[in-house]
């Protein structure tokens, strides 16, 4: 993506090599390797407990890795404490000092750097303007709304012009509309400053909207690193497939394998799919994953996979329609926008569901354990 560049000599802004973190017997982060480019908006995405916050804290220097190395701009900072690292964090609940007003809060990091008063004043005013909080200098944390506190936390973290900004689920406490507004504001800010952002979130929509690249994590490991497009359309593991966007799952057994095609016995007939990254042989259990928007309903076109299902429900979701059908106990969900739905016309109890061969992703069946389900 444009706007990102690697520092000369292939040096990355932030690099994690074999980083591990264990708390007594619990391994929170298990051998993580990441290369984050300068100026990149990089997200760590995953469910609670996947190790993303611990990883972020290790980059910040607030936790020491049990093993591995952390490099900032090529320099080994693994043993360097947080107050000597040139990265700053925006915390989940903002962590504004309640005994200082806004001006003093932002002044704090400048004081630690012993920046002279005049210069500090200019920096404070300029960063306040940057986050649109000019005029709030004398206010205290208790006099600010959540969104305002968030911007002050941002200003405070940016005032020392760090090499990278680390954000730990900063939008979690905000209501929906405000969150969406802040997402674009943060993205614009990041582009404007050309600063490396490392963003931790469990909200996949957020990650997909804002990031240049995403690292999807679970159970302390990174399952996949890629652009939002790659993560969405080419998930490497069943977990990634299930965590991002919505997904239909069909279990079956491999009946034949050709050069790049694979035939799977499922739902009473043979599904024709594209071979995935996994080496699968005849007789192996298989998990077919299809995105709801890739399913066609009563389509006139001939497709590689067609099944007859029973209509279960139609739900209007505001932006789209969700049509649920069942076949042999398996639920297949399809999604249509307003135009597509109108074209479907009246729906009868018996419907034909179809999809193209390359619209499905195949995983080994034992990856079923990893699936995120609620």
């Amino acid at each position, binding site marked *: 993506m444009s706007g990102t560049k690697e520092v000369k000599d292939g040096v990355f802004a932030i690099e994690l090599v074999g980083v591990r973190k264990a708390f007594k017997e619990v391994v929170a982060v298990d051998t993580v390797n990441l290369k984050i480019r300068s100026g990149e908006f990089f997200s760590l995405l995953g469910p609670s407990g996947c190790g993303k916050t611990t990883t972020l804290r290790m980059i910040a220097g607030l936790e020491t890795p049990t093993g591995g190395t952390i490099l900032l701009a090529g320099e080994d900072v693994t043993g360097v404490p*947080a107050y000597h690292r040139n990265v700053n964090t925006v915390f989940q609940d903002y*962590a504004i000092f309640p005994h200082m007003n806004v001006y003093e809060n932002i002044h704090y*990091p400048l004081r630690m750097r012993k920046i002279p008063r005049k210069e500090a004043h200019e920096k404070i005013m300029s960063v306040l303007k940057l986050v649109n909080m000019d005029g709030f200098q004398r206010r205290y944390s208790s006099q600010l709304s959540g969104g305002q506190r968030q911007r002050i936390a941002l200003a405070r973290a940016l005032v020392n012009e760090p090499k990278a900004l680390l954000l730990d689920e900063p939008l979690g406490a905000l209501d929906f509309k405000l969150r969406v507004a802040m997402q674009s504001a943060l993205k614009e800010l990041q582009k404007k400053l050309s600063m490396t952002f490392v963003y931790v979130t469990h909200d996949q929509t957020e990650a997909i909207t804002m990031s240049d690249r995403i690292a999807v994590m679970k159970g302390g490991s990174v399952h996949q690193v890629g652009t939002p497009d790659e993560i969405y359309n080419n998930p490497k593991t069943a977990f990634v497939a299930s965590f991002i966007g919505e997904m239909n799952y069909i279990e079956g057994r491999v009946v034949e394998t050709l050069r790049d095609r694979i035939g799977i016995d499922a739902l009473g007939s043979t599904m024709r799919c594209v071979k995935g990254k996994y080496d699968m042989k005849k007789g192996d259990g298989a998990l077919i994953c299809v995105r709801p928007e890739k399913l066609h309903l009563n389509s006139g076109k001939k497709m590689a996979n067609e099944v007859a299902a029973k209509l279960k429900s139609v739900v209007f979701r505001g932006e789209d329609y969700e049509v649920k059908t069942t076949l042999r106990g398996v639920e297949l969900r399809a999604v249509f926008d307003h135009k597509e739905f109108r074209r479907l016309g009246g729906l009868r109890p018996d419907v034909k569901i179809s999809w193209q061969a390359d619209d499905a992703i195949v995983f080994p069946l034992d990856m079923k354990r990893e699936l995120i389900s609620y």
Partner: protein
Amino acid sequence: MAEDTANDRPGGARRYIVGMPVVIWMLVLVVVPVLIMLSMSFRVKLGPQKVTPFSLGNYIEFFRKPIYWRLFLKSLRISIMVSVVAIVTSYPLAYFIARKVKRHRNLLFMLIITPLWVSYLIRIIAWRTILGNMGLLNLTLMKLGIIRQPISLFIYNQFAVIVTLAYIAIPFVFIPLYTALEKIPKNLIDASIDLGANELKTILRVVIPLSSPGLITGFMLSFIIALGDYIIPQQIGGSGGMMYGNIVWSQFGIISNWHLGSSLGFILFAVAAIIIGIVRRFGSKEGVYF
């Protein structure tokens, strides 16, 4: 109110009856004795069984005789020193237990509170054995070869009074300090470190200011405990360590001038009440931060 049913809470008369025992207790054991003393303080004793009618004579005596008000100022001074010592020793302890210890926190907390179960007088006498001529301190110093003869400078003076009073005050200072320190959210410490402050700077600029409610409460408790104490000066104060409480006490002893004693006691009471009032009004920021 229409909504008040008999099931919600005791209405009317029943509410008063439930509160009665406490009210009677407070009246009999606190309010009435204090009122009796107050009325006594306004009568000057002229001789055995002879008192004047209402007069401010006792109070005027306090300001007239230097021994009274000088000793009072001395007690104020000693109380401040005691409180400073108590806070300076309790703070690192409270900080360590509140923020650094994870597992045995309750045990450590109990260890600090447990001495309160031992009799006050016995704990004071224990200090005699520490500070005295053949006491722990002297014996240790002699064993280490630092001195050859025991020093009698540790006991029966102001130093001994301050040390012992501080010792007594420490559990009372520790508790509010611990409570205040424990409430400070960890992310504020993280933020301070992340923004460039090492641990010491974080303590000075973030932890101490945010624990100020505890500091104020602790200081106040220690001050009040020390101000009126007379047992410690009696036991180990000698002549140099005498405090205001001693002369109040002596009015109820041999001198047998309960009237003067009451007035001197009330002056102490009034000053303490004013200090508590001012601190609570302007000083304590309990609940402001968290």
